[in-house]
C-alpha cells in the first residue's frame, strides 16, 4: 500500500504525463475525455493544496526519485515551489473548464487535451525539481507543449492561422536560443562544481567563496541565467516575443501563458539566484532592478497605444512582470514578500482578464477595441468582471492588486530605493490609464455602428465560460479584503528563500542506500 502523502511531489508530475497519453488514446471518445480531464485536473488542484499544507506544517520535503540520494534527481517541495504548484493547478483547472466551450471540437479532441496535460506536467515539474538539468528538461516540455497549444484553433476563428504560425515561429526560435544558453550555463556549472543538484552546488560555491577561490566565470554563468529566465519572463531587452504570442494564442492558453508561464522566469530567478548564486547577488541586484524598471516603462508606454484588446493585456503583462522583478531586485524579506504577493495577484487578475477577453471576442466577433462600444448593455456580466480585473491590475482598493502595489512601494521606500519607486509609481498611473481606456472603449459610450460591423452575437456567455471568470473574480476580491493569509504565507516563503540552509539540509541529509 503506497501512502499518498509521501509521494505527492511525484504524483503531481507523473499524473499529467500519464493523462497526456490516455487522452491521445481516447481521442475518439470526446465525452470521456472531457469528464476525465476535468476531474483529474480538479483532483490535482486538491492534491497540490495538500502538498502546501504538508510543507507548511512539516517543513521542506525532499523526494528521491530512484533513491540515489543527492547524486540522483531529487524533487524538493518547499513553500515557494508548493505555493507555485497550487497557483498553477488552480489556474490550469479553471482554464481547462473554460476551454471546453471555447476551443474548436476537432482541435480540442485530437491535440488540445494531451498538450494541456503536458503543459501542466512541465509547470509542476519545473517548480518541484531540485536538479538543475532536470529544470532544463522541464523547460523544454513547457516550450514544446505551449507551442502546440498556441496553434490550437478557437471557435469562431478570430485569429488567422498565418498569424499563429508567425507568432509561434518567433516564440520557438527565441526559446531554442535561450535553451542553448541555459545548456551552456548548466554545463559550465557542472564543470565547476561536479554536481547538478542545486543544494549541492550551493554548498560547493559557498565553500569556494568562503575560501576566496570563487572563479570569475561563475559571474558569467549567473549572467547567462539572467538571460534565460529573463527570456522566459519577458524582461526588457527580451520582451518583444510576448506581445505577438500571447494575443494570437486562444484565450484560455493566453491566460495560462500570461498567468503562470511567465512566472516560471520569476520562480527560476528566486530559486537559482537566492540558492546558488548568493555570492554574486551584490552585482546582480542592481542589474535586476534596472532591467525591471526598463520593463515597466516599455510595457506601460506600449500598452497605452494599443487598439487590440489582447495585445493591450499582453503589454500590460510585460509591465506587471517588471514590478515582480523589482521586488526580487530589492532582495530583502519585505521586498520578496511583496514580489510574491504581486506575483499571485497578477497571475489571478491577468488570467481572468484574458478569459474575459475571450468572451468579449466571442461576443463582438473582433479583437479591435475601436469596433466595440456600449457592450455594458449587451454583456453586463463581462463588463462587471472586466472592471474588477482592471481595478486589480491598476492597483485600486479593495482589490488584491492594491495590497500588492502598496506592499511593493512600502518595501522599496523602507529599503531607500527612492528613484526606482518614483519611476514605478509614475507608470502605475499609466496602468490605471490604459486599463480604463480599454474599459471605456469596449463597454461604455455608444453602441457600435451595426450597419458597418454587424450585430453583437448573443451566444458566448455559457456557464462553462462564465464560471471560471466568476471564481477568479471572487479570489481577487477575497485577496483584497482579507489579504492576511496570503501575506503571511508570502512572508514565510520569503524568509525561507533568504535562508537557504533549511533547503540544503532537507536535501543533503539523505545518504546513498
Amino acid at each position, binding site marked *: 500500500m503506497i501512502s499518498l502523502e509521501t509521494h505527492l511531489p511525484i504524483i503531481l508530475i507523473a499524473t499529467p504525463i500519464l493523462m497526456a497519453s490516455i487522452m491521445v488514446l481516447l481521442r475518439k471518445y470526446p465525452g470521456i475525455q472531457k469528464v476525465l480531464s476535468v476531474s483529474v485536473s480538479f483532483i490535482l488542484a486538491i492534491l497540490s493544496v495538500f502538498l502546501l499544507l504538508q510543507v507548511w506544517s512539516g517543513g521542506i520535503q525532499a523526494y528521491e526519485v530512484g533513491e540515489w540520494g543527492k*547524486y540522483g534527481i531529487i524533487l524538493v517541495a518547499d513553500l515557494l515551489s508548493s505555493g507555485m504548484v497550487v497557483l498553477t493547478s488552480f489556474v490550469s483547472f479553471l482554464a481547462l473548464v473554460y476551454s471546453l466551450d471555447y476551443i474548436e471540437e476537432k482541435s480540442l479532441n485530437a491535440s488540445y487535451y494531451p498538450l494541456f496535460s503536458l503543459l501542466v506536467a512541465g509547470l509542476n515539474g519545473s517548480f518541484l525539481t531540485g536538479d538543475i*538539468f532536470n529544470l532544463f*528538461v522541464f523547460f*523544454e516540455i513547457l*516550450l*514544446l507543449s505551449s*507551442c*502546440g497549444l498556441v496553434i490550437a484553433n478557437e471557435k469562431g476563428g478570430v485569429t*488567422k*492561422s*498565418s*498569424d499563429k*504560425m*508567425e*507568432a*509561434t*515561429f*518567433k516564440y*520557438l*526560435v527565441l526559446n*531554442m*536560443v535561450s*535553451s*542553448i544558453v541555459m*545548456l*551552456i550555463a548548466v*554545463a*559550465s556549472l*557542472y*564543470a565547476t562544481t*561536479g554536481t*547538478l543538484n542545486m543544494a549541492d552546488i550551493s554548498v560547493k560555491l559557498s565553500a569556494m567563496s568562503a575560501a576566496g577561490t570563487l572563479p570569475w566565470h561563475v559571474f558569467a554563468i549567473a549572467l547567462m541565467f539572467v538571460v534565460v529566465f529573463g527570456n522566459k519572463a519577458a524582461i526588457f531587452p527580451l520582451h518583444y516575443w510576448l506581445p*505577438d504570442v500571447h494575443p*494570437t494564442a486562444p484565450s484560455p492558453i493566453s491566460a495560462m501563458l500570461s498567468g503562470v508561464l511567465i512566472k516560471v522566469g520569476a520562480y527560476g530567478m528566486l530559486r537559482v539566484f537566492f540558492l546558488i548564486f548568493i555570492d554574486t547577488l551584490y552585482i546582480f541586484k542592481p542589474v535586476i532592478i534596472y532591467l525591471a524598471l526598463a520593463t515597466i516603462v516599455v510595457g506601460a508606454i506600449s500598452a497605452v497605444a494599443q487598439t487590440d484588446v489582447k495585445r493591450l493585456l499582453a503589454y500590460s503583462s510585460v509591465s506587471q512582470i517588471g514590478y515582480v522583478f523589482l521586488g526580487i531586485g530589492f532582495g530583502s524579506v519585505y521586498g520578496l514578500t511583496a514580489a510574491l504577493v504581486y506575483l499571485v495577484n497578477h497571475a489571478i487578475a491577468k488570467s481572468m482578464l484574458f478569459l474575459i477577453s475571450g468572451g468579449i471576442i466571442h461576443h463582438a466577433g473582433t479583437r479591435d477595441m475601436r469596433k466595440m462600444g456600449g457592450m455594458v448593455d449587451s454583456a453586463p456580466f463581462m463588463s462587471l468582471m472586466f472592471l474588477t480585473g482592471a481595478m486589480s491590475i491598476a492597483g485600486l482598493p479593495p482589490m488584491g492588486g492594491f495590497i500588492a502595489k502598496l506592499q511593493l512601494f512600502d518595501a522599496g521606500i523602507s529599503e531607500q530605493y527612492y528613484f526606482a519607486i518614483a519611476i514605478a509609481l509614475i507608470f502605475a498611473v499609466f496602468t490605471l490609464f490604459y486599463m480604463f481606456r480599454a474599459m471605456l472603449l469596449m463597454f461604455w459610450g455608444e453602441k457600435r455602428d451595426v450597419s458597418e460591423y454587424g450585430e453583437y452575437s448573443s451566444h458566448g456567455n455559457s456557464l462553462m465560460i462564465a464560471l471560471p471568470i466568476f471564481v477568479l473574480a471572487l479570489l481577487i476580491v477575497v485577496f483584497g479584503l482579507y489579504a492576511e493569509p496570503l501575506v503571511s504565507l508570502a512572508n514565510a516563503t520569503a524568509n525561507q528563500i533568504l535562508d537557504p540552509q533549511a533547503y540544503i539540509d532537507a536535501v543533503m541529509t539523505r545518504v*546513498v542506500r
Partner: protein
Amino acid sequence: MNNTLLSLTIAILFGIGTFLILRRDIVRLIIGLGVLSHAVNLLIVSTGVFDGTKVPIITDDGGHGAAEVTGTIFTDSLSQGILAPVVEAGHQVQYVDPLVQALVLTAIVISLATTAFILILAYRIYEEYGTTDIRELRRLWG
C-alpha cells in the same frame, strides 16, 4: 594539444551557428540552430574528461570516487574465451565522466524534437506566406 583542438572545434561550430541564425532564410536559420545545439553537446562532453585516479563513479564500497586503479586497456578475444571487454594489467586508463554522456543523450533527444517541430512549422509558414524570407513575416506588426 587534444584539448586545444577540441576547444577550437567547439568555438568554430558556435561561430558558424551564430552566423547562420542571423541569415534571412528560414531554412538556414534552422540549420544554424542545429549546429549551435551540437556545439553545446560537444561542450558538455568536453567537460567530462578527467586526468588522474579520482573517478566520479559510485562503487559499492561506499567511497566517493575511490574505485581501485586497474590501469589497463579493455580487450576482448574469443580465442582466450573472453567475451566482454575487460581490462588487462599494466595499462593506464583515462576515465570519462559517465553523467555527461547521459546529459548529452537527453539534450540530443530534446533538440531532435524541437527541430522536427520547427521544420514542420517552417513548411506551414512557407504554405501560408509563399516565401522562406524571414523579413516577409511581418503581419503581426502594429
